[in-house]
């Protein structure tokens, strides 16, 4: 087992999780705005 490889992969985890929360956050805002605009 190579812990150095594990450690060097951690930034991918950080960027990946941050990226997914950012994209989902933007979608959340868009959906909230969409709901507000398109109320029937």
């Amino acid at each position: 087992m190579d812990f150095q490889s594990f450690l060097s992969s951690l930034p991918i985890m950080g960027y990946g999780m941050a990226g997914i929360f950012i994209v989902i956050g933007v979608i959340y805002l868009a959906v909230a705005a969409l709901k507000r605009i398109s109320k029937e």
Partner: protein
Amino acid sequence: MEILYQSLLLITWKQVLMLIIGGILIWLAIKKEMEPALLLPMGFGAILVNLPLSGAITQIYGGTAEIGIIDVLFNSTIANELLPLLLFIGIGAMIDFGPLLSNPKMLLFGAAAQFGIFMTLSLASLFPQWFTLQDAAAIGIIGAADGPTSIFVANYFGTRYAGAIYVAAYSYMALVPIIQPPVIRAITTRKERLIRMEYVSGSVSKTAKILFPIIITVIAGLAAPRSVSLVGFLMFGNLIRECGVLSRLSETAQNSFANIVTLLLGITISTKMQAEMFISFSTILIMCLGLFAFIFDTVGGVLFAKLINLFLPEGKKINPMVGACGISAFPMSARVVHKMGLKEDPHNFLLMHAVGANVSGQIASVIAGGLIIALVAR
């Protein structure tokens, strides 16, 4: 007469083992009804490609290559990512995003429950002697709990472990009712599992339902343009469903079209289950890592719900079990959590919240696939 038994003499123990594995997959599909639409074709395909001198796959006979039909199918439908993407049209047409639009907060659990993908990528990186970073990324995507995304990403990276990844992805999706409950119970208290969540069925306008797939495609496409086809085909299917003027196409996409694609997908990916490629220690390791991916996804979703609860007032708290539905595996995960809720309290109906989190997991897993492609160079 020798011609009748010459292939029997050529059979290896690895091929025999693969024939048994094929039999087990068929048994699981029929007897246990575990993802039968995929495990049965995969199981039969495993038998088909592991017979000695099988003409279903490309073989060299007398110095001449004879192209097998399974290889033809693979190169023309999966190597170019055609079938996984087409299947997404069908899946998109099947999904009602209404519960998510009613309660968009559930989107956050879709994000949190992708933790298993990235954690597994890092865990697979512990074994550089077997897995390159690209292999690790392809293994991590098992945690997307979404077959087409797993196929798409594994294929994108051209990993030689594709067969094991496909089998792990589909097997564990079918095993969600067995994997998730003990993990959820281990990290929640009974008091937390008893939390009731009021469901206010806010009316979602038709305009919102039509604009939703378009907006998601644009946002996800801008964030991870290389994977826009993934989310784009999913949302195209959903747009067909919601537009209200293509009901025949929507019905076709949900039924006959999705069935034909699934049928071809199952038998075609079996080309990656040839004994020489499949039987290895790394396959066992991938199966273990795939299991970790599903466990960490569940843990990520549940712990995130618990974290949010720290900031919510009494009466507005979220049942942390709902967080576990952020794993894609639609709709199994929502059903599992709904049943767990009812088991704890027969009057606690979590289904609509669970479905909201579950469909958000479908979107988030596709986005995660796109992010992995963007973050790890091919």
